[in-house]
């Protein structure tokens, strides 16, 4: 009965203050929305990866791979020898389908039936025989090219349509479906021989897929040729999932930061709602409601509001996830592997996590306010100044706790560990610690300003005085804005430093003036290799204005750690300049003269490798061979890690005469275009498709990819700013709502609308500048932690921190702009309210 009355009273209060309620809910909705959207996006990407793996592998349990593919003849002989086993050869290539990235699978129709990878579409296929299995139907076309139904529907394709496949025209001859429709999006299937031609893989297959039980697998593994390896399909999937883990954790951390800012906002609004009713609470206590009862009612309010707002937040999250998905998928495609994710996957666990985070953080943020409602003495609660006196007492303690958190965060940050979660925990603790210190620091800064500048303007004096006298409100608003602006600055500094490092690295890496890549680019940045005779290469080198050439091919090599992309390099005299060594050694000479590889910094970090370390490579001719690490070089091309091997070393252990790219150094002073024309003419003598580009365009394209990679981060950053904006807006509004009578008194005492609006503007500006100034050290700390801890642990990349000159004015402008914008409505509202009503307000 009592509870019902208390609820009725609370409900009436909130109904009378709808704007406050809406702002409070908006904070929770945005916070939950952002976290949920990232959780859904990450889950969708992982789910899409799992589904597409299922679609790709079908019932295959194992696969046999070799360092450089399996030669056709050897593969055929193996299948014949093991005729009792279910085995199928597969080619897998990334291709451009009408300009969009797709995965082309080459299958042997005779061996596919038991893998149950695909089902033909009975209604549309050229071969209109619904009884046929997918693989059998595939046989009925001379040049079969099938698209998954999902792909065809999305790209509006039907059987018989002409499509652009890697720049050549092809006809879509059929459609297929898989167990999961979403899983097959972006998949194309063709006959294995066609895939070999299109993928420039004539004479070999990528892998043999098998359906085996564990016992047979163990026996088979021991009988394989030295250069072949049997692995479970799940092993490859888990490796690929692990590659994106760092990226996904980064996104989650960014979203949690938004929730943290949201918590400041929730705390602010709930505290305000409590403070506004301090007299009501005092009266309730006078009539016999216990402190526990009051505490419970405030917590119950928070629960009800946060539950409603969290549910709306989940819906918002689903909407935002739809937008984030494309950006995230693009980044995964740019950085890791080709992934087709077209739809979001909702998991009950993800939604529950969002709900629990929303309600949990709201209740956590409300506890202090609830304690305040319950702990004040009934008499004290009626005194406005008592609250500020109490706040003044609490602020130094908050600062001490904050300082302790900062020290703990710093200590955690410097613990030598590879744990990314520990790094993020340190970052979060630093943020919370700094956030707790902000009200005290703000009060000091504002007091200092009031004493310094107050003499110049009474309005300024009043405005600043009002801010410092109301620290219970303004302190939190400044803290929320500071945290959000600092997060923006921190991420900006990190991406700026990163971009600068990548830019410098590209300048160093792209030492050749021109690059020829073979095969049409497929959008992945990888190229297919071709075989050239020495005469052709010598002729290329003797073209006018060509000074020297280097050649390379990107191959996948299997090591005792994992499989890595490896650049096999036939260096030119200038190639050494392309590498910046992380440790100073005679690495280049070792690289040229010994059985060694160079490893990239991420690989070295991940596997604790350094110059002189041993690494076992699975070679074609001799099986496992121990190589030395010649040196560790800076590389921002892959967070998974890469290696570079000298061509002569490679030729000792592998038989692959192809090259994938040629770097051409032009005679100093020579114009590039004539050289490009001569190179193209020379290429015309072969039937190999090639692309000739200068280093400037590659440099530009690479930076474009870099910028694309951080698009998702930028979106999250602005969403966080949105939460902070609502925070400062609601704080200003709350402050002015509560002070409506004071403003009315000022108006009645001769204050003009302009004067009062100016005062509000001054307050906002003061809050904005304070938040901006306080955000700079926090933003800098954040960028240092992101650069030196988070990035190294996530991706293995080290870089130099850069503080651009524009960063500080931009940060101040951002804080000031947000605060100024947030005061527009309160200022507008101020002049429109009835003076008499406000003067009557008790």
């Amino acid at each position: 009965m009592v509870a019902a009355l208390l609820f009725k009273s609370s409900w009436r209060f909130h109904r009378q203050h709808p704007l406050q309620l809406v702002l409070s809910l908006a904070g929770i909705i945005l916070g939950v929305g952002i976290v949920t959207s990232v959780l859904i996006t990450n889950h969708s990407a992982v789910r899409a990866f799992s589904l597409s793996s299922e679609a790709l592998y079908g019932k295959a349990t194992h696969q046999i791979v070799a360092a450089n593919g399996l030669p056709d003849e050897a593969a055929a002989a193996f299948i014949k020898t093991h005729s009792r086993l279910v085995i199928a050869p597969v080619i897998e290539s990334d291709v451009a389908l009408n300009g969009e990235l797709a995965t082309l699978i080459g299958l042997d129709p005779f061996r596919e039936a038991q893998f149950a990878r695909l089902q033909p579409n009975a209604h549309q296929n050229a071969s209109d025989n619904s009884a046929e299995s997918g693989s059998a139907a595939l046989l009925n076309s001379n040049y079969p090219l099938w698209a998954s139904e999902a792909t065809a529907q999305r790209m509006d394709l039907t059987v018989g349509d002409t499509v652009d496949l890697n720049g050549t025209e092809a006809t879509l001859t059929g459609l297929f479906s898989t167990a999961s429709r979403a899983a097959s999006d972006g998949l194309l299937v063709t006959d294995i021989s066609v895939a070999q031609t299109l993928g420039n893989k004539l004479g070999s297959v990528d892998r043999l897929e098998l359906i085996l039980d564990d016992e047979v697998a163990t026996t088979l593994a021991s009988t394989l040729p030295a250069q072949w390896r049997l692995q479970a399909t799940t092993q490859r999937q888990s490796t690929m999932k692990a590659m994106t883990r760092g990226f996904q954790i980064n996104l989650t951390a960014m979203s949690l930061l938004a929730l943290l800012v949201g918590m400041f906002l929730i705390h602010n609004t709930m505290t305000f709602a409590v403070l506004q009713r301090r007299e009501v609470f005092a009266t309730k206590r006078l009539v016999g409601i216990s402190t526990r009862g009051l505490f419970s009612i405030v917590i119950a309010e928070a629960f009800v509001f946060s539950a409603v707002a969290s549910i709306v937040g989940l819906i918002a999250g689903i909407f935002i996830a739809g937008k984030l998905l494309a950006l995230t998928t693009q980044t995964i495609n740019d950085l890791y592997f080709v992934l087709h994710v077209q739809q979001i996957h909702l998991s009950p666990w993800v939604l529950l996590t969002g709900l629990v985070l929303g309600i949990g953080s709201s209740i956590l943020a409300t506890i202090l306010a609830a304690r305040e409602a319950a702990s004040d003495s009934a008499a004290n609660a009626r005194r406005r100044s008592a609250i500020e006196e109490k706040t003044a007492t609490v602020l130094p303690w908050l600062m001490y706790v904050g300082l302790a958190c900062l020290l703990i965060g710093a200590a955690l940050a410097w613990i030598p560990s590879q744990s990314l979660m520990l790094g993020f925990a340190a970052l979060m603790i630093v943020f919370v610690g700094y956030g707790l210190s902000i009200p005290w620091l703000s009060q000091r800064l504002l007091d200092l300003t009031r004493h310094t500048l107050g003499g110049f303007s009474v309005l300024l004096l009043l405005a600043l005085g009002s801010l410092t006298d109301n620290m219970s409100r303004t302190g939190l608003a400044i803290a929320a804005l500071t945290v959000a602006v600092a997060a923006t600055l921190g991420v900006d500094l990190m991406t700026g430093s990163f971009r600068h490092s990548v830019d410098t690295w590209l300048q160093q890496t792209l030492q050749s003036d021109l690059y020829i890549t073979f095969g049409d680019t497929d959008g992945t940045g990888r190229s297919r290799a071709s075989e050239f005779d020495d005469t052709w290469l010598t002729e290329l080198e003797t073209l006018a204005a060509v000074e020297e050439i280097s050649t390379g091919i990107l191959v996948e090599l299997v090591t005792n750690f994992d499989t890595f992309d490896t650049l096999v390099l036939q260096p030119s005299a200038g190639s050494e300049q392309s590498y910046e060594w992380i440790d100073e050694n005679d690495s280049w000479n070792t690289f040229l003269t010994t059985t060694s590889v160079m490893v990239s910094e991420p690989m070295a970090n991940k596997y604790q490798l350094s110059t002189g370390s041993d690494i076992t490579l699975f070679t074609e001719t001799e099986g496992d061979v121990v190589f030395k690490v010649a040196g560790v070089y800076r590389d921002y091309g892959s967070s998974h890690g890469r290696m570079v091997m000298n061509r002569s070393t490679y030729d000792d252990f592998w038989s692959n005469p192809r090259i994938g790219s040629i770097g051409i150094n032009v005679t100093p002073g020579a114009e590039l275009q004539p050289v490009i024309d001569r190179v193209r003419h020379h290429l015309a003598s072969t039937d190999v498709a090639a692309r000739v580009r200068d280093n400037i365009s590659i440099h530009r394209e690479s930076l474009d990819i870099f910028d694309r990679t951080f698009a998702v981060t930028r979106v999250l950053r602005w969403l966080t700013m949105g939460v902070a904006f609502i925070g400062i807006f609601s704080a200003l509004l709350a402050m002015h709502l509560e002070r409506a009578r004071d403003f009315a008194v000022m108006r009645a005492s001769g204050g003009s609308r302009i004067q009062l609006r100016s005062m509000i503007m001054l307050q906002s500006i003061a809050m904005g500048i304070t938040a901006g100034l306080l955000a700079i050290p926090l933003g800098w700390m954040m960028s240092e932690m992101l650069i030196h801890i988070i990035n190294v642990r996530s991706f293995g990349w080290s870089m130099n921190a850069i503080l651009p000159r524009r960063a500080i004015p931009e940060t101040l402008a951002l804080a000031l702009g947000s605060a100024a914008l947030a005061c527009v409505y309160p200022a507008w509202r101020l002049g429109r309210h009835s003076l008499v009503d406000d003067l009557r307000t008790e």
Partner: protein
Amino acid sequence: MAHLAVDVTGLTHHYNTTSTQPILKDLSLTLDKGQTLALIGASGSGKSTLLNIIGGLEPVQQGSVSVFSKPLQSADDAALTQLRRNTIGIVYQSFNLIPTLSVTDNIKLPMALDGVARDEQRTRIEQLLEKIGLDHRSNAFPDALSGGEQQRVAIARAVVHRPALLLADEPTGNLDATTGQQVMHLLQDLVAEHNTTLLMVTHSSTVAGYADRVLTMSDGTLKEHSEHASSANTW
């Protein structure tokens, strides 16, 4: 008309646009400069509304109101602000002190808004604090003061810019008899000092007894009060 401080003619006022019954009905009133007028009447009779309209806090809906020959019905917000800043001071029943400003700052407020020089501000505040007997509480905040002290500060704030017209809405309504009497004496002294015109709204016949003239408001109209009470009454 130059001798008139307030001239109200045919004033009709509704609480809001939907109400059919006016709170003030075709009301007329004149108040001479330097005169003290008390308005008495039952709650809800429209006394405070009339005071607020004369103070430029509520708009003139119908009729005309002039304060020191300045017509309020045609005045815009800036003109009304200027009028309050230079000509009018207001004392409220509930004091309406700004809780986050000290006694000194509360008194300083109207001068600060009017751009009075800082030295002049200081001098006037010191004089007033001494006059209201609160020079020892100059740095105290309102919630640390008694009701009587708060009302004295409110009066000081209302007269610090030396208004020609002082409006007081139930100035002793929240005070006990003795304190109320002290406050009225103070008000009387300050008004006399600068020949300020005073318009008071009160329930108390004792407070009304301080006035030169007393009008009774009933059903939105005014009539001269027949008894000029001077004996003790409830505050």
